[in-house]
């Protein structure tokens, strides 16, 4: 990697060890469950065993007899303060606690407040709730039947379970193309409901101070500033206006999108703290987390591709049925009900596409969060990358050749996609070539051919995806009306050391290191001397938080821009100190010098000291700057992934032999951290490809709502990931970076699915839905008479 700065300065491109690690390694991280306040009470939540039922009665008398149980709170209690409903991020509505009906299994029914965790749990067991179960709507296709019960009777005038319809592209042109095309392929795909399952669950400590009418909310949130605004919107009418609310997002034990929404537990904790005037801690357990917090995905997609016999892709058509559960609580930008699914035309050069989606209510938990994905991009990439392979199979062309033939070429950027995006930059041919060379692709194909003759099963799967991240430009992107800019504030102290604060919030991404590196690059102040802080709404500038790989594209850009403002100021001070005109000065990392007389120079530290001790008259003293960065466009990272699998033709065990991931995330701030992000993302791509799915029976009972049966990959299932990169800087981003946290989660599942289907394609298999388990493969082998 080419670095402009020395390792001591530690600007862009250095694999600096992480600044945040020391506290985590010493066991001194400060996560929400570590927060302990004087007088703090504990909350536990009674949850519904039914997916759909009327609540006939809630009897808390036995619970209240238990010493240490302070209160039991129900929807009726909250109703008195009009706090029993809340808005979702998609402007739908959601119960905080029900007053009469439960809409999904494990929904919050009542809250028990007690002096300690164990007593709260005892109280929860003692609350008696009488239900009258009703027949739930579980299958999203059936939810649109005319005879299906209307679930959202709380919504006036609602006569069905349809939430919204969305479409993009040219419908008529696409229909015509599909009628006339030489080759059309079609597959029905389900991208199943999954759960982010960060190892830390969700929780909070709500601390309302009656004397000062002030709420401090310690909370597992990826977006503390937005949460503060939401709290003020929901509870402003009881006096909690925005200046009286402080949200602190301490260390976060993984987020992946699951810590973007506002869950009922948070709101109940606030309400109870408000009522009893004591701090309330609520930390959900793992089963509650899996069963009630926001799910991800659950898209049923009909995917079609049209093309020529010799392999030219001409168009795509996708039709989606989105199962949103009981309410639309997706975490998407407001104008994008399907998130950024419209990136699904992929990395290929064609101009005809049409996509449409319908969303429905069912009796399942609400959600639609990211699972480490930029707003539904994983679903889109799965559809395009699977159907591309299907097309290659149909015409008998190698999937690598087919991709090379159809890629958008390097010199076609900026490229307008058929659904309206302007891809900023990319070099797709180089990425795939590098992945193929790393693996020895054509040798593997030969090996596969020979193995097939011997009846052995081996497959090679490719995924060459384009991501869309960095939401986003304010003209299109907002959440509940708040534009999706992000911010940085840099203060440099007199001795030349700095503190920088941001509107984002790391959950393991390493911002304390990478943001410092960006500032080091721009100002020449060593990264080691730049302290980064996030997550406290009282001190940090406003921002929309960390998700959808937006931190580097937005707040990272803000850091560079704020630093550049400071460099402009530094130049003025240097001119004053050196008694020359600004035009005579040149910048070199960490100092200004006089052109032609490099011995006459001032270091950034000298300049900053002067800003406090000897600033030019008429100039503002001090050395700080803030920048709110509103990106001109999104960024479009890309990747070329190839997976090689071996399948045991007796047990159907699937083994990933090799997985090569070549990512292009533009300029790289810290290669070590980028690689770590890719490793983690790939494992979260492996997970839904082969292991994870939240399964419900016809009654709406979750069948795998614990870590005993919802299977996260361990170190044994995870292969030794081989990673590398190509670098195509983003032309519009101040430091040419694009964002990377999610690319691998987005790109890996189709590579794995394509490899497994490829291993079985000679048996007539054209598609398998993820997660592809050994049992699913065994069934195929059994059907084909290969195993009994």
């Amino acid at each position, binding site marked *: 990697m080419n670095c402009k700065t020395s390792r001591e300065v530690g600007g862009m491109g250095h694999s600096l060890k992480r600044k945040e690690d020391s506290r985590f390694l010493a066991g001194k991280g400060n996560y929400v469950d570590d927060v302990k306040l004087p007088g703090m009470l504990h909350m536990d939540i009674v949850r519904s065993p039914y997916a759909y039922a009327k609540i006939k009665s809630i009897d808390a008398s036995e619970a209240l007899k238990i010493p240490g149980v302070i209160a039991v709170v129900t929807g009726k209690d909250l109703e008195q303060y009009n706090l029993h409903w809340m808005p979702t991020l998609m402007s739908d509505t959601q119960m905080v606690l029900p007053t009469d009906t439960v809409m999904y299994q494990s929904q919050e029914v009542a809250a028990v407040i007690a002096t300690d965790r*164990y007593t709260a749990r005892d109280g929860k067991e003692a609350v008696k709730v009488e239900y009258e179960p009703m027949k739930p709507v579980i299958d999203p296709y059936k939810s649109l039947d005319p005879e299906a019960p209307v679930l959202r009777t709380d919504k006036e005038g609602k006569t069905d379970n349809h939430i919204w319809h969305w479409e993009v592209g040219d419908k008529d042109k696409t229909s015509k193309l599909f009628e006339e095309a030489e080759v059309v392929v079609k597959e029905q795909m389900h991208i199943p409901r999954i759960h982010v399952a960060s*190892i830390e669950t969700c929780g909070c400590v709500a601390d309302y101070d009656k004397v000062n009418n002030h709420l401090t909310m310690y909370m597992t949130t990826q977006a503390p500033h937005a949460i503060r605004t939401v709290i003020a919107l929901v509870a402003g009418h009881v006096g909690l206006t925005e200046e009286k609310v402080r949200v602190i997002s301490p260390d976060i*034990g993984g987020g992946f999108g699951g810590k973007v929404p506002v869950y009922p537990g948070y709101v109940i904790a606030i309400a109870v703290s408000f009522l009893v005037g004591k701090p309330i801690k609520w930390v959900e357990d793992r089963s509650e987390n899996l069963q009630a917090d926001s799910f991800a995905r659950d898209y049923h997609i009909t995917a079609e591709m049209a093309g020529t016999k010799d392999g030219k892709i001409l168009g795509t058509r996708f039709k989606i049925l989105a199962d949103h559960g009981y309410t639309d609580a997706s975490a998407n930008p407001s104008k994008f009900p399907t998130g950024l699914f419209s990136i699904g035309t992929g990395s290929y050069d064609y101009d005809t596409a049409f996509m449409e989606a319908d969303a429905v209510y069912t009796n399942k938990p609400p959600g639609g969060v990211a699972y480490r994905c930029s707003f539904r991009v994983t679903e889109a990439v799965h559809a395009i990358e699977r159907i591309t392979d299907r097309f290659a199979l149909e015409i008998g062309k190698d999937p690598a050749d087919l991709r090379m033939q159809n890629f958008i070429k390097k010199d076609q950027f900026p490229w307008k996609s058929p659904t309206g995006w302007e891809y900023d930059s990319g070099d797709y041919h180089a990425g795939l070539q*590098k992945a193929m060379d790393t693996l020895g692709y054509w040798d593997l194909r030969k090996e596969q051919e020979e193995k097939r003759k011997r009846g052995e099963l081996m497959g090679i799967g490719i995924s060459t995806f384009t991501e869309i991240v960095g939401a986003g430009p304010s003209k299109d992107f907002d959440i509940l009306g708040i534009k999706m800019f992000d911010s940085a504030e840099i203060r440099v102290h007199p001795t030349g050391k700095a503190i920088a604060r941001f509107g984002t919030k790391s959950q393991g991404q390493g911002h304390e290191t990478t943001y410092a590196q960006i500032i080091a690059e721009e100002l020449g102040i060593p990264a080691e001397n730049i302290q980064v802080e996030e997550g406290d709404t009282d001190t940090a500038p406003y921002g929309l938080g960390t998700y959808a790989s937006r931190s580097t594209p937005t707040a990272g850009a803000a850091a560079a821009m704020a630093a550049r403002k400071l460099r402009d100021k530094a130049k003025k001070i240097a001119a004053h100190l050196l008694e020359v005109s600004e035009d005579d000065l040149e910048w070199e990392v960490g100092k200004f010098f006089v052109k032609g007389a490099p011995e006459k120079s001032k270091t950034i530290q000298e300049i900053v000291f002067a800003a406090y001790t000897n600033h030019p008259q008429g100039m503002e003293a001090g050395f700080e700057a803030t920048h709110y960065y509103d990106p001109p466009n999104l960024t479009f990272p890309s990747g070329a992934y190839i997976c090689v699998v071996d399948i045991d033709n007796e047990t159907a065990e699937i083994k990933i032999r090799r997985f*090569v991931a070549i990512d292009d995330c533009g300029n790289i701030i810290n290669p070590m951290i980028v690689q770590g992000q890719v490793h983690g993302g790939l494992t979260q791509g492996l997970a839904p490809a082969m292991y994870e799915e939240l399964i419900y029976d016809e009654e709406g009972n979750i069948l795998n709502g*614990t870590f005993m049966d919802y299977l*996260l990959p361990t170190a044994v299932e*995870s292969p030794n990931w081989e990673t590398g990169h190509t670098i195509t800087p983003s032309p519009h981003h101040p430091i040419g970076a694009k964002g990377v946290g999610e690319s691998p989660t987005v790109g890996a599942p189709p590579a794995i699915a394509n490899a497994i289907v490829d291993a079985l394609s000679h048996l007539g298999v054209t598609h398998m839905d993820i997660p592809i388990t050994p049992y699913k493969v065994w069934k195929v082998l059994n059907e084909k008479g290969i195993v009994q």
Partner: protein
Amino acid sequence: MKKQITITINGEQHAVEVEPRTLLVHLIREQLSMTGTHIGCDTSSCGACTILLDGKSIKSCTVLAIQADGKSVQTVEGLAAPGEMHPIQEGFKECHGLQCGFCTPGMMMRAVELLEHNPNPTEEEIRWGISGNLCRCTGYNNIVRAIQYAGAKMQGKETPSTEPTFV
């Protein structure tokens, strides 16, 4: 119905009163306020709560506090003196073996026992050895390297390079 127990944690003796049902992890975290040991599940699946009990790595959410009466516990806080690092901590830092840090204390405590029995584990042995500990962030590659680094360091051998390698 509380019961008095004596337990040595990181070399320091504590006489505490616990309910018979109190889990060891809650004693450590809540009563003794050592919050480096974490809780990630309710089914003994994740390993975030892993500590050493009389030198053996165990999941402290699966042991009652009273079962630890008279025994000795080591937690992440006891790995090194403040400001210093045990080789396993150094390995995790140098090899980028942690991201959010939530699984890390449990992962390190498990690794310490693993290395005690097998100072030169192969990649395969490490992967199986930590298969009771879930990490959602790192994808395990760098945890494997971190443990190998610590193994070398603990034997006074030359440690492997910690620079990331790319294809």
